[in-house]
């Protein structure tokens, strides 16, 4: 049996939404290099809809795949829906992750929420 599902390998080999949004409306970063995983998410939001999302990840195969899947799941969604994203949903969409890799999906959820919070706080400070 392979370490990862086909879905994980697909998102790892061909990650969706990789990159940076220079004029992002919200940016989130979680994790640290010490633990071996860092995820950074950039959001472009118009009328409370996530128009674009990009990510950068330093981490293992499942960290990259989780980031990629999470961005796909929230792209085009209203901010209120994206806030409801769970790590479980990300892992399920990837056809599962090994137990000791579940923290990668947690990081993906946290990175997105972190970016959404950044968006909200910027909005409130306007």
């Amino acid at each position: 049996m392979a370490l990862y599902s086909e879905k994980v390998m697909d998102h790892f080999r061909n990650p969706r939404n990789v990159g940076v949004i220079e004029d992002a409306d919200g940016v989130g970063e979680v994790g640290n290099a010490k633990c071996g995983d860092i995820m950074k998410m950039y959001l472009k939001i118009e009328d409370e809809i996530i128009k674009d999302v990009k990510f950068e990840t330093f981490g293992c195969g499942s960290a990259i795949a989780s980031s990629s899947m999470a961005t796909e799941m929230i792209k085009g969604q209203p901010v209120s829906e994206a806030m409801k994203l769970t790590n479980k949903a990300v892992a399920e969409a990837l056809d599962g992750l090994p137990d000791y890799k579940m923290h990668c999906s947690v990081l993906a959820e946290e990175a997105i929420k972190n970016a959404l919070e950044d968006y909200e706080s910027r909005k409130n400070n306007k």
Partner: protein
Amino acid sequence: MIYADNAATTKMSDAAIDTLTRCMKETFGNPSSLYSIGQTAKEVLEKAREDVAGVIGAQPREIIFTSGGSEADNQALLTAAALGKKNGKKHIVSSAFEHHAVLHTLERLKKEGFEVTLVDVHENGIVRPEEVEKAIREDTCLVTIMYANNEIGTIQPIREIGAICRQKKVLFHTDAVQAIGHIPVNVEEDNIDMLSSSARKFHGPKGVGFLYVKKGIKAENLITGGAQERGKRAGTENVPGIAAMATALKEAASKLDENTVKLSAARDRLIAGLKTIPHSALNGDEHSRLPGNVNFCFEGIEGESLLLLLDDKGIEASSGSACTSGSLDPSHVLLAIGRVHDVAHGSLRLSIGETITDEECDYIIKSVGEVVEYLRGFSPVWRDLVSGKKQFIL
């Protein structure tokens, strides 16, 4: 496919497979039985013992066959501990980058009241004999230092350490799992009291190894039962596996010089090529290392991603990466030589085999360069390094 993980395990040689299958078919008897087929098995067993002993300069009766390197390490450490306990000596000297078969056994002994001093392995991954000498106390019952490190391949000054132990009258054990069959080892010349080895690291079968215990040292029996192995390891001997191990070891010993020349040249070609990747560094001393070992850190990337993408390119290697082992901590070996966590996560170990060609080396260099560049392309760590937000370490 290029298999570059021979430090993890090797492919069995054809000669070893022949011995194994022949022995399974023809010499299936129990070596403890007195009828012919049993005695034939006994002859095969004792011939294997002679062959193994011959390669490392030991006497046949000094060899105990085990299930592998881990069991041999356990038996060696527990032997020294039992003798130490009897003499009121409960201090052991070792190093921080030993194999877990040694480190975890030391942890177990600590719970039984033993004290352990781990000597520094320094940035080059080499223990200093004078520091071992300093660490030895009146109550030291054992010094255990590996012959060559399993991750970074650095070869330790075993002969010098052994001489110090002889002079101080302290038992000296070495985990030689990565060394036997790859570099010359002689228990007499190297002043070794106990030595562990595993067949699968030199093209022998899995599940077989041996412990050398110098004559005069009473080995502690970990597995009680029958009187096999002179009462030092119960259980009917794995005759086919043991015979195949002897075949593989003799073969490795006879090709040692030829393989060393070939592997060292390939290793140096890989090191020179991989050094050209920006912000990379070789782990461990460049010269005092196993002929087939290359171990690098690449800043800004994580090791598991690197391994998976190399696998896609047909290169099978390993890493000291946290993610491969399922823990959040990177390799204890890389941390022991002073690599910080951030950098230690981006490691790659290539342990090449004798069949490697120059073209394969060049393909590995090119592939690693491509994958590292690709992963850095979307690494937030790399972005911070390039933008100056963080300082480069390598």
